[in-house]
Each structure stands twice: as C-alpha cells, then as structure tokens.
C-alpha cells in the first residue's frame, strides 16, 4: 500500500504536525464564508505555491487536481442547472484550494507524527477499553488485512472460474464473508495465545509495518 506521505526534509516536513493541522483548520474556517473570486484565487495560488516549494516531487503531486476535476465540473454543472453558476465557480475554487491545502499537510507529515497529533481526539474511546496500544495494533491489523482480504477474494474467484469458466462476482460474497471471519478468529486466538493485545511487545511502528 502506498501512503500519501511524500518522504523528504523540506521546511514543511520540519514544522510540527499540530501546527500544520491548526493552520489548516483556521484556513478552512476563514475560507468558508468567502464568496468572491479574487481572495479564493489568492488562496489557490498559495496552495499551489506550497506544492511548488517542495520542488519537482511536490509539483508531481498536483495530479490531485486532475483527479478532483470531474467532481468540480459536476458541482459547477449542478449549480448551473439550478441557476447559480457563479456561486458554483466560487464553491469549486474554494473546494480545490482547501483540498490542496489539506493534501499538503498529509503530504508533508509522517504517519507517526500525525497519529500523535490526532490521538487526543480519540481519547474518549478509552471508555470502551481502547488504549493507545490497542489503537496502534488495530491500525496495523487493518492495514495488513486489506491485501489478505483481496487475496482471499482472488482465490475464491479463481476457484469459481475453474469450475464454471465465468467470473464469480456476487456469488463469492458468501464464502468470502465466512472465510474472512474465520481468518480473523484465528488471528484473534493467535494474539490471545501471545498474551493478548495489551501483552504484545511495544514499538511496532506503523511506518515499518507499511514497509516504508
């Protein structure tokens, strides 16, 4: 799995994650009531400028714009259909600028730092017995499960193809659900056998699990 983080040592990478999140939050709140084109164009230029400040790898990441373009076109068309085309352009500009700003924060912040910065939001979950360690383990398990699930799905589809010559599609949903649940029970037992989620050795960094 490719994380959206861009490895590097730029000025933006060195800023604390909490500060970047704070600036992003303030920018979103301030940009929200703006309803004229000019300040939004300024904001958009700043966002693009931030990407440019990372050099060529940063500029390459501006493909986000292309991926987002169809949504923007639909938004403008929708506004045009209900007779507020001008507002549609303003909304599209603001969305693009804010999405770029937020992506910039993701691009320049390591997952560990982001996790440390976001963690306080999840503190209420300790009510349900979710300690920091459990959260980290659950996150690692989720990341690991994705390719495993896709593998299970692939095997079932191949087996179905071998039997029928057709793609399995929805017919493999049921065996997939049962195999996936059985798999997760085995993993749960294995964790319990090793002393439970709270007994696992600490220090499994997420970046390392991701292979980065």
């Amino acid at each position, binding site marked *: 799995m490719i*994380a959206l983080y861009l490895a590097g040592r730029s000025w933006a990478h060195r800023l604390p994650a909490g500060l970047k999140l704070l600036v992003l939050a303030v920018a*979103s709140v301030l940009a929200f009531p703006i309803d004229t084109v000019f300040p939004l164009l300024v904001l958009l230029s700043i966002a693009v400028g931030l990407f440019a400040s990372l050099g060529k790898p940063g500029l390459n990441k501006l493909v986000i714009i292309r991926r987002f373009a169809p949504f923007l076109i639909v938004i403008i068309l929708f506004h045009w259909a209900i007779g507020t085309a001008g507002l549609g352009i303003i909304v599209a500009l603001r969305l693009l600028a804010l999405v770029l700003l937020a992506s910039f924060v993701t691009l320049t912040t390591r997952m560990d730092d982001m996790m440390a910065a976001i963690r306080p939001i999840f503190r209420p979950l300790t009510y349900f017995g*979710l300690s920091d360690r*459990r959260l980290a383990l659950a*996150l690692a398990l989720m990341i*690991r499960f994705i390719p495993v699930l896709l593998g299970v*799905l692939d095997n079932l589809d191949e087996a179905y193809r071998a039997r029928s010559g057709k793609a399995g599609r929805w017919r493999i949903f049921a065996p997939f659900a049962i195999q996936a649940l059985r798999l*997760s029970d085995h993993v749960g037992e294995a964790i319990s056998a090793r002393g439970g989620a709270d007994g696992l050795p600490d220090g499994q960094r997420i970046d390392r699990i991701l292979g980065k």
Partner: protein
Amino acid sequence: MTSDRHLVLIALFAALIAALGLVPAFQVPFLGGVPITAQTLGVMLAGVILGPVRGALAVLLLLFGVALGLPLLAGGRGGLGVFQSPSVGFLIGWPIAAFVTGLIMQKMADANVLVSSIVAAAFGGIIVLYAFGVPGLAIMLKTPLWETFIGAMIYVPGDMIKVVLTGLITQTIARGYPSALLTRRS
C-alpha cells in the same frame, strides 16, 4: 480472550470497507456510468454483524487511517483532503450509520435474520446516512437543501442493492458461521 477477538474483528471490518473501495469489480456502474462505491456495503455489514459500538469503532478506525494519510477510500482517496471535500457529511455519517444499523439489528433480535438485517441496513445505511450526507453536501456546495436531496437520489438505487446484499450476506453468516454474528448471541 474475547476482547482480542473483537479487536481483530473491528480491524477486519475496517479493512473490508477499505477493500470494497479498492476492488474495481465492486464498483457498480449505474445510471449512465456514475460510479457507486461499494464502501457503504461494508459500513452496513459492520453495523449488522458487529453491533452498534464495535460497528461504529470499525468505521472510526478506517477514518482514523484516512486522516493519517492512507488512501483507504474508493479510488485511492485519503488524507486530510477528503475531510474538506463535499462528501464529508457522508464520512461523518458513516460511524453513526453503522451505530444505528447495529442498534436496530440488536433490537430486532427475535425477528428473522434476513428481514431484520435488511430493515436495519436500510434505516441506518440509507436514511440515517443521508440525513448527514445531504446537508453536508448542501453546506459544502452552497446548494439549496431540496435540490441537493433530489440530486443525491441517483445513489439510492445502488444503496438498495447494497441493503439486499447486506441481508443475504448476514443470513449466510448466521447459517454458516453464527458465532461471528455478534448482534445475535444470547
């Protein structure tokens, strides 16, 4: 210990929602090619099978991964950008939809599994989810609420398919692996 098992199940369903966004075969082309992601199917299943609290936790775990910068949403989207995008209302609605779905499933413990999971998924995964998603769209896009609501209706047929699939899959699990159906254990 059961808490380890539940932790793994929460991670499994979070991964399932992510995987549903990655498999192109699961993206149903509907009404002139508007892609409909299968990810809400995972949200419905998390509620129906894991119950309200664990179902919501599975969705929150996924969103936590997204906020950290993992491309876990349909089409490889992720990072903080998605929380600035028009669909943020739906993302906020996801854990609540899973919670309500699980709650209804639990309250209907005596009813037929297929019927109760379809009712729970339809109420939680469509009505509750749109109650957050549509106002979210209207606020983010500055469009009038009613027109936005009408526009969002093109997604409802796809959601109904997901509701039926949720019912069928849950029934299969109830028969083939009943111990995993946490909403139905006495």
